[in-house]
């Protein structure tokens, strides 16, 4: 018995001693250690930082930022980082505790600075909105991401002036791609007849996209900006009425949430469910592995469903 116990103990200790996998540690030339919260912020930071930064992303691919729970490794990564980029606007509910326990309060850059919040969804006023500032899904409008690029470039230039020329050049290249993306989205949206530009989502996560490209958000299955809220029977009845009376063609559901409610509403109203990417990119090599691919994927999904 004793033998087995000590054997078990050795196994446990060996398990603990295994070094943590460190993303990107092979890049010896990296001069800055950068941590981002979501994969989307991570992609934009990579576009600007290139090989000069060593990047770790806290949220795994596919994780819902509203309900993420950090591990001790995450705390350690944040503690060791030179700079931390977060979406902000209340998206990362886990972040306050995390940066406090990592002692990194001074080194966090929130990318919501300089962006005007929208709160386009009337339902959100009565519903359970857990983001006081407004819709936190800032990146659904590439023009907001343009602001991110400026913020990121400014921050990296200050921290690492030696590589400032590279960062600024990367930022210019990427900004041009964002402009192309923006005009491509406009062309695509123009294919949808004006009376069909009505959007129902599972929770209110397309506010900036809706506002920028001339859609109307009819409503959301779950009230508010967080995937964690629950609707009342009245709210669900209201959204079914709206869908029926406006002839809404599709319900857009994020691919990281439980689609049960949206599926019932779609069945009852005879609309179709269209899945799209929300808080996370796809795995590398997937259909939405970068922000540009992500926006193209989602736009195509929306246009195909509504046109």
């Amino acid at each position, binding site marked *: 018995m004793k033998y087995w116990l000590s054997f078990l103990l050795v196994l446990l200790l060996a398990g603990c001693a295994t070094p943590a996998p460190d993303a990107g540690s092979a890049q010896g030339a990296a001069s800055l250690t950068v941590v981002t919260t979501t994969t989307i912020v991570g992609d934009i930071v990579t576009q600007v930082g290139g090989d000069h930064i060593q990047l770790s992303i806290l949220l795994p691919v596919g994780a819902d930022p509203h309900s993420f729970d950090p*591990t001790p490794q995450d705390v350690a990564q944040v503690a060791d980082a030179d700079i931390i980029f977060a979406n902000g606007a209340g998206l990362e509910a886990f972040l306050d505790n995390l940066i406090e326990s990592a002692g990194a309060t001074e080194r966090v850059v929130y990318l919501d600075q300089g962006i005007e919040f929208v709160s386009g969804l009337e339902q959100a006023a009565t519903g359970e909105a857990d983001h006081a500032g407004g819709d936190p899904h800032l990146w659904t409008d590439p023009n907001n991401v343009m602001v991110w690029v400026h913020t990121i470039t400014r921050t990296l230039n200050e921290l690492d002036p030696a590589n400032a020329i590279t960062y600024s050049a990367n930022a210019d290249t990427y900004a041009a791609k964002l402009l192309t993306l923006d005009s491509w989205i406009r062309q695509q949206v123009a294919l949808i007849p004006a009376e069909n530009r009505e959007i129902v989502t599972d929770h209110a996560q397309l506010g900036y996209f809706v506002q920028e490209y001339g859609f109307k958000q009819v409503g959301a299955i779950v009230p508010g900006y967080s995937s964690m809220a629950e*609707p*009342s029977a009245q709210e669900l*009845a209201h959204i079914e009425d709206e869908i029926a009376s406006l002839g809404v063609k599709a319900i857009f559901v994020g691919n*990281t949430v439980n689609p049960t409610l949206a599926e019932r509403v779609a069945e009852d109203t005879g609309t179709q469910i269209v899945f799209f990417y929300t808080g996370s990119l796809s795995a590398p090599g997937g259909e939405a592995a970068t922000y540009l691919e992500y926006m193209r994927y989602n736009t195509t999904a929306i246009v195909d469903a509504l046109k």
Partner: protein
Amino acid sequence: MLEFILEPLNYAFMVRGLIAAVLVGVVSAVVGTYIVLRGMAFFGDALAHAILPGIAVGYLVGGGAREPLFWWALATAILSSLGIGAISRNTQIKEDTAIGIVFAGMFALGVALISTVGNYTVDLAHFLFGDVLGVRNADLWLIAVFGGFVLLAILAFYKEFMVLSFDPILAATLRLPVRLLDFLILILIAVTIVVSLQTVGVALMVAMLVTPAATAYLLTRRLPVMMALAASIASISGVIGLYISYYLSIASGSAIVLTCTAIFGLVWGIRSLVRVNL
């Protein structure tokens, strides 16, 4: 008045929700009488967490399909409840402590499995949990079939279960297969919990399992009366709660749970003023 009652029924989700609330209410409340009598109120909440490793494995094995998850959850719940039974039978440890040990261990195992895989595309912990407004027709069949099976089993072993719940020592003297019956009751409770979880979600399941049976316990000590009372209280709470959710715009699960709680408070208040004995 009729308009008031009929208007919500225009919505298919309300009709399905009402049927589900009543079915889950009846089955959970009947099973809940054993839970209240045995003093294991947190069994429901504990099992809802203990199924996490099963869901994680089922998700990985099934490549993300949602349908098989129910069976993985059911198997894990039955295994966990048998583990709880085995610990409390074979050691000096009380049942509620055994529940704590198994629940914590299984939940941690689930979290460990998920964090090892890292690349998961859904919030697994909430993936199985239903919502009373999101009930499918298939779910209604699921409760009807499994609920019917549970109620039939309770009917078949009615006398044995009663002796076991009220007087375990007598049960042993009568040479009843105590251990077997004990495991059977735990399995029936586990089945009820997983089916309710999948249809109406965790908060509503826990409340339906405990509160109506506890309310009935305030009024009577006779098991059949207690079961009938608990089942009625649960179904009435389900219906009233859904109407409140419709007219006052309160999240449905919460509305039903709060109705259960209010009925408990009311009965408690009345009982402390007048002696009721059913």
